[in-house]
């Protein structure tokens, strides 16, 4: 992803978060999105991050960050203690992705989940050609990818239903722009806004 589309993606995701929300950002990286939400949308909250350098980067930005392995769950966080829980490009790294999805919905009144969409047409084409895709959104070779969960918009919809999560909104993201027509083929990233209770 180039800088411009990354920052456009960030703004699109940020726009899903109501002004003044209390936010928990799971796998918050360097705290860029949280920092943006605090600055531009008057939000407050915490990031959760495992990587030492990212934790330090969050602290340096003035973003509250809790160093925690998400595989250990969210026991630190009380039910419905956040307006919005973000899982941006986190799900694909999690062994317990389904448990974490439930936990995300438990802790937040709303959940926003974004992940690489494996059904994006260049990925389909690569697989048709007999090779795993290597793209801007999925830049790794199959043998060293940290993305241990690859799925599609339709896959995620099924998972959400299975866990009694209500989908408030879903769309794709491509080059910084939301894709609402046939996103499962036309967008490299999937975005869902969810709530407990089907």
């Amino acid at each position, binding site marked *: 992803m180039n800088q411009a589309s990354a920052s456009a993606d960030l703004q699109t995701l940020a726009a899903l978060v109501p002004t003044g929300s*209390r936010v928990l950002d799971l796998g918050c990286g360097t705290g860029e999105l949280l920092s943006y939400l605090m600055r531009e949308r008057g939000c407050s909250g*915490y990031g959760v991050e495992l990587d*030492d350098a990212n*934790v*330090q980067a*969050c*602290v*340096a930005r*003035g973003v*509250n*960050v*809790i*160093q*925690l392995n998400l595989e250990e769950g969210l026991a*630190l*966080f*009380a039910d419905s*203690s956040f307006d919005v829980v973000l899982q941006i490009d986190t799900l694909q790294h999690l062994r317990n992705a389904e448990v974490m999805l439930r936990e995300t919905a438990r802790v937040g009144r709303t959940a926003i989940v974004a992940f690489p969409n494996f059904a994006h047409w260049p990925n389909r084409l690569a697989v048709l050609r007999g090779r795993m895709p290597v793209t801007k959104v999925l830049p790794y070779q199959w043998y060293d990818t940290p993305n241990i969960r690859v799925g599609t918009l339709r896959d995620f919809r099924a998972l959400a239903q299975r866990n009694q999560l209500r989908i408030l909104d879903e769309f794709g993201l491509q080059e910084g722009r939301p894709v609402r027509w046939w996103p499962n083929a036309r967008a490299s990233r999937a975005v869902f806004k969810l709530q407990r209770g089907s």
Partner: protein
Amino acid sequence: MTLIATPQSMHFEQPLALASGASVRAYDLSYETYGQLNAQRNNAVLICHALNASHHVAGVYLDAQGQLLPRSQGWWDNMIGPGKPLDTDRFFVIGVNNLGSCFGSTGPMHRHPETGQIYGADFPVLTVEDWVHAQARLLDRLGIEQLAAVMGGSLGGMQALSWTLQYPERVRHAVVVASAPNLTAENIAFNEVARRAIVTDPDFHGGHFYRHGVLPKRGLRIARMIGHITYLSDDVMNEKFGRELRAVAGQLTAGRPYQFTTQDIEFEIESYLRHQGDKFAEYFDANTYLLITRALDYFDPARAHGGDLARAFAAARAQFLLVSFSTDWRFSPKRSRELVKALLDNQRDVSYAEIDAPHGHDAFLLDDPRYTAVVRSYFDRVSL
């Protein structure tokens, strides 16, 4: 640039009422300061010390001839000083020796101002809260209304936590390293073994050994040896000492690996522990050891709230940085997470770093780039 430290002392005439109901009559507190208090008086950072440290936090001492005194670095000199993670070019840092300690502030080896007798075992029992009250009085006298931050590790971290509860309006930030909301039973047990070692030393004389011209050094040595084991991790001890035998000239002949002695030193770890014990017994006061470990045992801010730590921290207004170390089994990450949870439940600003360091509890005094970088970044964000 070398930071030169100058110990100072402040006398307090007004008695200090203690949690126990007793009070300390007139007393002195030893302290040091580094850097300059700014015009707004809002850049002060108080450093709280743990069991065997003092007000000499940073810098070095000069001898009578003005020469650098060798090995006189403050106990947190790697963390605090000009250009260090807690930068004394920006902050006015205060180190204070706690009441009951043995490094200058009034303690058991001093004389009661009225009776003229050495306190010994009669020095009143102290709590973390008592220390914080005494520190607050020192700040009053230094003209500091509000701290930019209070910082401490281990027992020092407990004092930092207590500051945010006792004087919530006087602390903007708390940096709490390798600490806990209270001691576990196992931790109290270690303290009790150490105390029994001291108290049962025939030279202890019920805590009035000063009158007898002796020191309960055997007890202190054993107390320190036990303590030292718990400050390290199994891995770091194995790495440092393993099963290495202490080299004895002419001893290691083929086929005879050991000296076959039960009382002499055989392994390097034994030699190390005895050395640490000997060193400690030379400078540390036995009654101080009892008092400080007891203060550790008593600390438990949740107790007054039915054991509910979140309710205890409802009073806190500060922003927090908590740090723990993965191999610290004396003040484990689990205990720091309890604190994080209590702060999250109160929607306080908190950041938490869990450093994967091999050094056990001692890690809080060592240089780990991940640890120092987080502390540095945090202090960089403290606005003045």
